[in-house]
């Protein structure tokens, strides 16, 4: 209950900031432009997914770190109140993830809705893309909080770690996978690849997008192996629980840090 009060405070605070509205507007304009000029609904949604895979983690990370730094006085003030740290952390986390996810869903969703693309592409596909977007927001706000708390007084360091972790997960990780595949090309690597991709949340979300849009290519060759895994009940459960783990672990670690922190 207390957490909810803090969420509502933050809600007001974020909207006063206008940044969030800008974030939603960017998605709105982008999606609208993609539908208008990109030709065709499914293609627009695919481009949107590509943008989502890139921007949602980045923005969530940066916002997560920055917001913690910015609201330092607010946090310290609240800590002086009779309020347990757990609800305060939950309030801060919820107060950022809910508006961020909402900004993405509303910003990207409105053009899909008013142009009727969501009917054209099918509700399931749209729901998958938005579900993945929300999951990525939750994960990376958590990671951002983690870095923000760890380097609470060294802002540049916290910010730098956040950026590097994004760069690692979005680009370098795939480079390592590429390297691994070409080094061990003589071995059957399908299962190892599945294992590796499950470890990285951006890759996991990317595969979710692939399964929606590139199913024809996935049906050929090795793709069939991936498709069989992620298409099966077990694969789905594993992928989903990995996403949940990715949401839970950073948030839980953040909470631990927050509890112990001497402000």
């Amino acid at each position, binding site marked *: 209950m207390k957490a909810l009060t803090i969420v509502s405070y933050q809600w007001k605070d974020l909207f006063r900031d206008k940044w969030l509205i800008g974030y939603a507007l960017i998605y709105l304009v982008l999606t609208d432009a993609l539908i208008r000029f990109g*030709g*065709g609904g*499914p*293609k627009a949604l695919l481009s949107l997914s*590509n943008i989502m*895979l*890139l921007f949602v983690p980045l923005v969530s990370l940066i916002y997560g770190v920055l917001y913690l730094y910015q609201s330092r006085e607010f946090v310290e003030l609240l800590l002086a109140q009779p309020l347990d740290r757990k609800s305060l952390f939950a309030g801060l986390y919820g107060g950022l993830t809910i508006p961020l996810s909402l900004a993405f869903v509303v910003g990207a969703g409105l053009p899909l809705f008013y142009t009727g693309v969501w009917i054209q592409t099918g509700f399931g596909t749209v729901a998958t893309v938005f579900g993945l977007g929300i999951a990525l927001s939750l994960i990376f706000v958590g990671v951002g909080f983690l870095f923000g708390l760890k380097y609470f007084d060294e802002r540049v360091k916290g910010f730098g770690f956040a950026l590097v972790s994004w760069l690692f997960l*979005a*680009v*370098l990780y*795939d*480079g390592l*996978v*590429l390297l691994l*595949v*070409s080094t061990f*090309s003589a071995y059957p*690597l*399908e299962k190892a*690849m*599945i294992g590796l*991709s499950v470890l990285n949340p951006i*890759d996991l979300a*990317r*595969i979710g*997008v*692939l399964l929606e849009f*590139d199913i*024809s*290519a*996935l*049906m*050929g*060759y*090795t*793709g*069939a192996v*991936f498709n069989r895994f992620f298409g099966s009940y077990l694969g789905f459960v594993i992928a989903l629980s990995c996403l949940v783990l990715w949401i839970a672990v950073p948030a839980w670690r953040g909470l631990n840090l927050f509890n112990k922190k001497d402000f």
Partner: protein
Amino acid sequence: MWTRFRQIFFLVLMMTAVQAAKGQSIRVSPDGTVNTLEQALALADSNDVIRLQEGRYLERNIVIDKPVTIEGERNAVVDAEGEGFVLIVRADNVTLRNFEVQNAGISFMDDNAGILVEEAKGVLIENLTLTDNFFGIYLSKASDSTIRNNTLIASGERETQSGNGIHLWYSKNITIHNNTIKGHRDGIYFEFVEGIAITDNLSEENLRYGQHFMFSDHCTFTGNTFKNNGAGVAVMYTDHVTMTGNRFEHNWGSAAYGLLMKEIRESKVYNNTFENNSVGMYMEASSRNRVKHNDFINNGWALKVMANSMDNQFVQNNFIENSFEVSTNSRQNFNIFTGNYWSRYMGYDLDRDGVGDVPHHPVRLFSVLIEKQPEMLILMRSLLIGMLDTAERIMPVLTPEELIDKKPQMARIQ
């Protein structure tokens, strides 16, 4: 009065004469005097019409050795009960129409067929329903015949226990029009045939190929739909094939191709649609073919052209939303790509003549990588792959430098 009577008499005489030339009509019904097709055929003379009344005739290996017409009523069924052939046509000018043929037997020794036409001319097979036969309609050394408006449905589950829908062997001048073939091994199969026209057929959900043919020059396929077959359509070892206005759809799997061309020469592939296949079109050891005005939409790979294919022209095709546009296994290119529309084209058109000012490289670095290491497929749409593709496009190192479209169209070709 008398003249009038004479006129009528003359008219009746004429009609009888015509009737006689046309042959008499024999009725077969389950509870009549003639109650099997075999009896009727024994009674019949040339040009007679045998009318099958409603009912089920449990007969097999029925040999038609004179030019007769067999016409069925609604629900007239000839059933071989899963053994041997049903009908064997060994005479010219036989017509089979409006009945159902069932259950030619599965055999590993003989190609048992619902209807076997052997060394005959001028045979017409129309409006038949063939259900659960091993082979459907089997033409061997036949010529000048027509197979039209038939429905062939089988429910084979394994390739070894299933025969082909329409099977042609050493035949000439056959027209195959508006048939529906479903659930056989190969929907339509040819070997050593010539001058065949296949139009407006639907071949779907067959276990292996929707259509499969070899050593069959000068054949024409127009307006057919091949959908959801185990391995798509395969044409092999043939010259001068014309394929126009066909649809190749939903052929999914590790060895499924919308259209597989192996050693095809001087053929035309015009105005076809390839949609949602794992590989739209696969070309191996084929040369001097013209591929024009086709739509490749939403395929995994739109085109796979092996390096042993030469002098093929790919002109004015639409490549729309394919995961990969062109893939090949060499850095050399011996084919011509020009004037196509590529939805992945990133260039610009400053002089506004509808043609892009910079050439398009349809082979991505990623498709080259995947050709070597298929496991990399899981990296598709990664930011890293996008960056590598862009770098490669600017400075080709691994992709075929010559395989470019110098006149990429800015808008979809209608």
